[in-house]
């Protein structure tokens, strides 16, 4: 339609106000306080769970048998850090993923708000360092496969199956991979980001063409590392269990969460008076992306579940048993919350065209997806690490708060560093006239 588009002044600077900084600091302080409170409660109440131990063990099968020496309350603390770190790593790297495939596909419309995905990966070093630290401090508690005895035929702990995975699951190789993931993702993002900033300064299509190249390189790298990192970060926790789908399943989860974070950021910035040139058509498309990839996540979830359910092989079904009926049905609620918030909710909220063009519905759906996929990772990590000692209390809530505030801080800082309009982007003109 030939409706009149407000021609933006080609400069718009995001301001990270003292007020928002104050709020984020309060959030982090509150998060730390909550974690402290939760830790105090756990530390003083440790051992009270022993009564449930036996029953849950029977359901959990032999996965943890023998490995479950003393449970320490700190495991839950570290497991929480791990859940959030994996989750926010995904959100951050999806910013880069989104940029890269938009370059490769020569998408025009997304250049109107490309500064937002571009700002997301800046958080990667933070989560990367946190994950390295957690692995050094508490790897032994979180990852069953780090136990030396599993690989020693003379040890009572010896596990021939896990011993067979030694070539992949060993500490040096694991650390090399972890450093490689973050190094490659972050490094390639820096390249793309610099090209984008230089394009702002000098113009010309040279930067655009280079960006396509580096975006493609990232996609090749990410095509492999997205799967392997999912095996490393999440699947290896349930050391015996395996699923070929797991890599793509995690990618689907990360991707849709990243899209929801992007949408929420765009909408919030618009409400603060920024991004005037982002019109209803852009929002509509973002809504479609969230809608479609929520369904895609559901598809992948269902395909994995269905095949394991149908074939009914004990070594595979144990995974869903633990989450469905294991540990005194501790994870049953989050199992259903996961499905509801990540499929039914966005599906129903975003079904109509009008909803996808209305900011309030977009915000509701984005929040649903963001919260829902936290539970996706919660449900994939917690049963294998803390099992019957899991739960949702101040420690979980506080940890989310710390990470979320940290992420927002990083995102806001990055947004201030560049013009919100990528003013020399060759697709910008198309994006400003985007109309569907």
């Amino acid at each position: 339609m030939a409706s009149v588009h407000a021609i933006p002044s080609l400069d718009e600077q995001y301001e990270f106000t003292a007020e928002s900084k104050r709020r984020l600091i309060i959030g982090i302080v509150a998060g730390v306080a909550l974690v402290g409170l939760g830790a105090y409660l756990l530390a003083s109440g440790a051992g009270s769970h022993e009564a449930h131990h036996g029953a849950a063990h029977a359901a959990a099968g032999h996965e943890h048998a023998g490995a479950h020496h003393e449970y320490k309350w700190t495991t839950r603390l570290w497991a929480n850090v791990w859940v959030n770190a994996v989750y926010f790593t995904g959100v951050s790297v999806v910013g880069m993923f989104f940029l890269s495939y938009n370059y490769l596909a020569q998408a025009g419309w997304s250049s109107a708000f490309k500064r937002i995905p571009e700002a997301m990966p800046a958080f990667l070093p933070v989560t990367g360092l946190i994950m390295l630290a957690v692995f050094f401090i508490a790897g032994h508690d979180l990852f069953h496969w780090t136990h030396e005895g599993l690989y020693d035929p003379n040890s009572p702990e010896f596990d021939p199956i896990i011993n067979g995975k030694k070539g992949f699951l060993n500490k040096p190789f694991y650390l090399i991979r972890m450093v490689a993931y973050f190094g490659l993702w972050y490094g390639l993002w820096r390249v793309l980001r610099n090209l984008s900033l230089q394009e702002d300064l000098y113009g010309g299509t040279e930067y655009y063409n280079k960006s396509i190249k580096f975006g493609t390189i990232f996609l090749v790298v990410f095509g492999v590392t997205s799967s392997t990192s999912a095996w490393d970060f999440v699947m290896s926790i349930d050391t015996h269990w395996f699923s070929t789908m797991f890599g793509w399943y995690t990618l689907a989860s990360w991707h849709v969460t990243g899209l929801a974070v992007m949408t929420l950021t765009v909408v919030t910035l618009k409400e603060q008076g920024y991004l005037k040139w982002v019109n209803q058509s852009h929002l509509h498309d973002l809504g479609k992306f969230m809608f479609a990839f929520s369904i895609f996540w559901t598809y992948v979830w269902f395909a994995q579940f269905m095949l394991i359910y149908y074939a009914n092989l004990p070594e595979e079904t144990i995974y869903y048993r633990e989450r469905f009926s294991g540990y005194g049905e501790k994870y049953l609620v989050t199992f259903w919350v996961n499905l509801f918030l990540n499929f039914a909710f966005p599906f129903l909220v975003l079904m109509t065209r009008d909803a996808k063009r209305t900011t309030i519905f977009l915000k509701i759906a984005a929040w649903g997806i963001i919260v829902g996929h936290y539970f996706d990772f919660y449900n994939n990590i917690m049963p294998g690490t803390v099992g019957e000692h899991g739960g949702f209390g101040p420690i979980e809530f506080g940890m989310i708060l710390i990470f979320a505030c940290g992420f927002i801080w990083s995102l806001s800082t990055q947004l201030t560093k560049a013009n919100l309009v990528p003013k020399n982007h060759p697709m910008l003109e198309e994006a400003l006239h985007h109309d569907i």
Partner: protein
Amino acid sequence: MSHITSPVRTPLVTGGKTYADVTEDVSRQVEGRPTREWTIAFTISVIVLIYGAACVFWTWWEGLGVWGLNKTVGWAWDITNFVWWVGIGHAGTLISAILLLFRQKWRTAVNRAAEAMTIFAVICAASFILMHMGRPWLALWALPLPNTFGSLWVNFKSPLVWDVFAISTYFTVSLVFWYIGLVPDLATIRDRAKSKVSRYIYGAFSLGWNGSAKTWARYEYISLILAGLSTPLVLSVHTIVSFDFATSVIPGWHTTIFPPYFVAGAIFSGFAMVQNLMLIIRVVFKLEDYITFEHIESMNKVITLTGSIVGVAYLTEFFIAWYSGVEFESYAFINRATGPYWWAYWAMMTCNVISPQLFWSRAIRRSVVWTFVLSVVVNIGMWFERFVIIVTSLHRDYLPSSWAMFHPTLFDISDYIFSFGLFFTLFLLFSKFLPVVNMAEVKTVIKSSSETLPKSVSGVAKGERVTKPAFNKDAE
């Protein structure tokens, strides 16, 4: 519509075409006499079809014993061919539905032929389902009909029954989608038609279309919804085909990555087939200005992408077979690579994973010869993929005493040839009697994507048709 297009985009229509040119260039071979090339190709196809049909008839008459199946290998070429054809069919829906949702303008020139290909490929696939039943007259037993032997129903828990629903739904919806897309173009041909017969036939099939703004608005709306429906549908079809294997507990079949990996492989092979068909069509029908190197290059990029996805899936399967520590699973994969069918495995790997990587070179991506050859290679590879999955997993039973090999007979091969005869006969009929390029949609991108825009985009109309309107004579 805003026609603002970024200068970095390459044009999709060359030669400064006007709207009238589009109509003329595409309608030409529908209205003209069959060309010599077409007649020769059609004759060959019909001969192949007749030969194949005789062999299929004999397969049914004599029984499935004429195939090389044995007690251990109970599925071989039949299901390989079925999955292969269904896979090929996926590209059409991908182009028409997913690329419509993504608003990729280059799809406009190729979607019509790709969708036609989908429909014919699904027909070929279904023919193998009928063939492998052995008694096709009892095919209705696959439908949930109350039968005369008591109230036993079909087993809805079986992936084979899901397949019946998936394939028939897919065929129906694809056909409807294709037909709805054809209606405006059929109206164009109706209004140009000179003979009474074609005016009547194209008139009936164009459903009285007159291109009013209201109809167009609704048409665009339902096209989007159909695309929205077809997208999960196309995923579901190959997902369910993969369920045929993956729900069972046969090593090499039961693996959770199968659904998306089958879908990626399907799109991969389908695009290769679209390339083959379009490369011929653009030359024979002189449509080089519409199916440009941009189109070929875009499709080659999709081939590289999906081929790489398939490659990642192969490696994932291999890795997890080792990682799982399940000895049967590990054996199945080692047997694939080094067992008696090693040649099939390495044919698959070479054709599917390695050869498409050549498309990283821009020169190869834009070369007609390379594209054609590599597309054929991809389709050979994808046939071998299904053969590897089916036959190498089956030929090693859990009981070593049942281990066997599969040897195709003349009828295995001839029944496969039958499907080529059927496919090309149908496709050639389509290309002669229906517009192979979606004229209405190409006209919508002329302004935004032409290399050079003519002074008047409308072009010259054929005066004769204006003075002699075909319809509403009674009203005048």
